[in-house]
């Protein structure tokens, strides 16, 4: 029993030491406040940034006033999208994007990706996939659908 626990302790302590040593820089960046909004390496995904509700509203207003090149992408499932989404948004469920070899958004220069909000993570994963396809201006609206609808902003439903 004693040797059993000693072995467990040795493995855990070694793992903590090795993990900390190998990831020292990453730990420092985390302590400095990086990765607070999502575990995205800004050096690797330079074209992705996180935006607030106010910034999203601003972009939405620009779009409704006719600004081109702006596309809102909803990464939730089809049912959630049908029940209500940001007007003009395109439904790209994360799993569908993973399965699809090509992601093409003709005319889009800036894409705003959102999911349910709260602790949802699909917008981040989808943003990474879109970044990997070559898009370089991707905004993640972290408040997501929950924050948008709670603010009483325009909604659209699909039949």
């Amino acid at each position, binding site marked *: 029993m004693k*040797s*059993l*626990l*000693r*072995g*467990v302790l*040795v*493995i*855990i302590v*070694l*793992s*903590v030491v*090795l*993990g*900390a040593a*190998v*990831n020292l820089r*990453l*730990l420092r960046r*985390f302590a400095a406040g990086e*990765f*607070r909004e*999502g*575990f*995205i*390496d800004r050096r690797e995904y330079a074209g992705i940034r996180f935006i607030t509700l106010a910034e999203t509203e601003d972009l939405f207003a620009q779009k409704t006033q006719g600004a081109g090149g702006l596309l809102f992408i909803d990464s939730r*499932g089809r049912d959630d999208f049908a029940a209500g989404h940001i007007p003009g948004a395109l439904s790209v469920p*994360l*799993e569908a994007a*993973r399965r699809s070899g090509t992601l093409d958004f003709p005319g889009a220069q800036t894409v705003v990706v959102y999911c349910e909000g709260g*602790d*949802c*993570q699909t917008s*981040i*994963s989808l943003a990474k996939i879109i970044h990997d396809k070559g898009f370089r201006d991707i905004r993640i609206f972290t408040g997501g659908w929950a924050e948008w609808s709670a603010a009483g902003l325009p909604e659209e439903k699909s039949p």
Partner: protein
Amino acid sequence: MERGWSPGGKIALIRNRWLLLVLRVIVGGVFVWAGALKIADPLGFAQSIKNYQIIPHTLAFLIAVVLPWIEVLSGAFLIIGVFKRSSALLISLLLIGFIGLVALALARGIDTSCGCFGSLSRRADFSLILIDAILLVFALSIFFARPPRPNH
């Protein structure tokens, strides 16, 4: 020499040392491989943990830094035969945790990649629970195994 917890030999499942070696190589190999892929991409793994929507942000990050090493070390020790039972115990506990996490994600309708093999991860679904359960049986068999009888 480590001895099994097997009062009266009732819990000891396997005595055949070759079979045990095969089980150790299988379970250890899977864990070394899975851990190494995660060590290569700690942020990706942290994101995978977050995707389950149950573990807080900072804890997810710390787990992503440490847990892959526990997997690699336990797996490697299991294969080479150092701290065999401790490694089997840790791996069993991890597998129980993974099964619980995936089951909870399924129950809550969270559709996510498991994050178990880095970028090679599959979906967190029922068949993943089955695979983890098989590995758990293997790991527990190693943990409860008794050393072979003399002259056996």
